[in-house]
């Protein structure tokens, strides 16, 4: 929309990206870590959409198309991620990421 400041949209995307990153880095619960990643992906989608507003023609459309793919990829990643969680919690009854730190240097 004409009046929305695209810089602010981009800023929002960047902040959300970093927020997601922060979740990944700060939290120990594996589910939260995975959700942090999802948040990052979402933020990027926003960035795409925002950029598409600044471009013309097919180039502009690309910005709308890429998130389509991204959502599918995110779905696939979430799927595998959850399977991973199921798999590893089977061996070790914990969803604490620090619990998986047996391999030393």
């Amino acid at each position: 929309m004409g009046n929305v400041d695209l810089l602010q949209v981009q800023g929002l995307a960047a902040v959300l990206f970093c927020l997601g990153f922060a979740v990944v880095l700060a939290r120990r619960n594996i589910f939260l870590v995975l959700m942090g990643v999802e948040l990052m992906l979402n933020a990027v989608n926003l960035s795409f959409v925002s950029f598409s507003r600044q471009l013309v023609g097919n180039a502009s459309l690309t910005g709308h198309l890429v998130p389509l793919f991204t959502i599918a990829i995110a779905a696939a990643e979430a799927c595998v991620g959850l399977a991973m969680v199921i798999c590893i919690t089977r061996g070790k009854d914990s969803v604490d990421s620090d619990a998986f730190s047996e391999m030393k240097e």
Partner: protein
Amino acid sequence: MNLTSSLLWLLPVLPLIGAFINGSLSLAGARTLHGPSRGFVALIAVLAPAASFVLTVLLAAKLPPAAVAVMGPAPTGAPAFTQVLWDWLSFGSVHVPFNLLFDNLTALMLLFVTGIGTLIHLYSVGYMWGDRGFARFMAYLNLFMFSMIMLVLGGSLPVTFLGWEGVGLCSYLLIGFWHTNADYNDAARKAFVVNRIGDLGFLLGAFVLLYVVGSLDYRDISAWFQSDANAAGIAAKGGLIAAAGLLLFFGCTGKSAQVPLLTWLPDAMAGPTPVSALIHAATMVTSGVYLVARLADMYVHAGALHLFGIEFTVLQVIMVTGLLTAVFGAVAGLFQNDIKKALAYSTVSQLGFMFMAAGAGAFDVALFHVFTHAFFKATLFLGAGAVIHGLHHEQDMRRMGGLAKAMPIAHLAMCYGWFAIIGLPGGSGFMSKDLILERLFGLSGTPELGLMVGMIAVATACLTAVYMSRVMFLTFWSPSRVAPEVRHHIHGTPITMAIPLIILGFGSLLAGLLWTEHIPQFSLVFFKNFLEPVVGPAQALLSPPMAEGAGTGAHHGASPLTIAAWGIGAALLGLLIAWANYRKGPRGRTVAEHPGSEPYGFGAAWTWAFDRVYDWVFVKPVKIIGLLLYWIVELAIVGGLTYAVAGIANFLGDGYASVQRSRLRSSLALSAVGLVVIVVFLLSQLG
């Protein structure tokens, strides 16, 4: 050149074939019960040098008469047969063919080398008959004959060196022939190593000579030195030539057991007695004299040397070295109880005489003494060998005595040898020693030195008479001290040992007749003339030619007859002293007090001191340096460095590897920091 020349190669090859056959037989028979057939081995072993001897005689007879070449130093050199077998060494501009040279000097050497060699082979057949390593021994002896013939026949220094080292090797093998005895092995090793020390001098001397002359061929060398065209070059390079001479002489001191490299020879008596006779008395040890004579032209042209302000020539060095050795050997010989060691020191002493002569510029006389010495010393050794053999390998003279009756042949032969060596008229030793004294007293250039050396030489001759007579008294002419259990089993002398003994015994009496210039009625200078083509020019240069014949030799107050009288007097005096001291047996401590055959007394201490000094100055330091190098440099520095590097790497490995985190969040945070750093860095660069 012609058929005669083309046969030269056979001379060394015949014994080599013998060595090869006997060596193979020895190896093949090593596993069998009795070893290879001794008769066959003996046949091969004796025939090989005998054939060489016959060939030598034939060739020598065919040599152009010496008189033809006496016309002066012809550029073509002395008459000779030569044979170039093939190109041996060739590098850069240097070409050393593998060539053989058969001239008068060679002929002389070969005649007694192969002649006496054959006899000693024959003797060995008897001496070693019962030994398990009979074939091996014969193979070694034949190999020695090959090497010795190569030494003498070689036409250039490298070819001679081939024989030079070869005889050293054979000497090593034969000294250590009874290899289960550690002392014998040590003695053998010592002989080889000391010889090698000398050989280094030989090599370096050859290099210097090659650098100066551009060739190592004897005839080229002689021609180069004799050529007037090179006079300026010779003068300019006198120092280098002298250096070459010294170095080569150093090589000779090793081979001929002169001061300072003489300590190996007494120890070398560990070998079987025929070996001592052949190698360590008659042939190998005299090769130093041969080499000096061979290079006479070089020695007379060598420049003067300066050391501590004294100017001297190489020949003087040789003379003084010979003198020292002669005195040392004679003194040491006085105190030996081991019959072979006594003879060994005698050899050392006699070799000193030879070098004295050579140093005086009388190369022909030196060679004459070599020749006569070969006979009488071989006789003595073989006689001693017969005694030892008869006494079941008893070598201690304190356990001998009164053997004259038990071993008449040995006694007789040794008497001949004794007669010759102490220099009583009629023996060959008298002739050659007399000539040496005459040349010393008649030394031109530095007569004072000659007089001094000559006087000491006379004294030494007296000592010679003392210790040799002592040997005879203790062995044959004093009351028997033979151990009772041995006394009843004294062997006679087998025929194969007796024949050589007798022949050599007569030889030691008669060999002197080849050069009897001072016996008025019997003036025979065959020997001198025979060598004239080879060493003549050099000697002529050194001392102005004198009129031949009696009465002219002495310009320093000593006529030949006086000198002869001096010599005879010294011999008689020595005999008297020995008679006075030893006719009843040994003096000093008895066997019971001092068992074994270790040398003791003053002379023994002397050689002991030599060994100790060498041990402390050379042998021990070498080992210590080796160990130090090994421990400090090899293990500590090189090894330590390597370990240090490995340690640092491991340390770093530990340090860096610990960057690896085990927690996900830590790893991820570190990666994130990396990301941030990259982005921030990029932005900072973008401004």
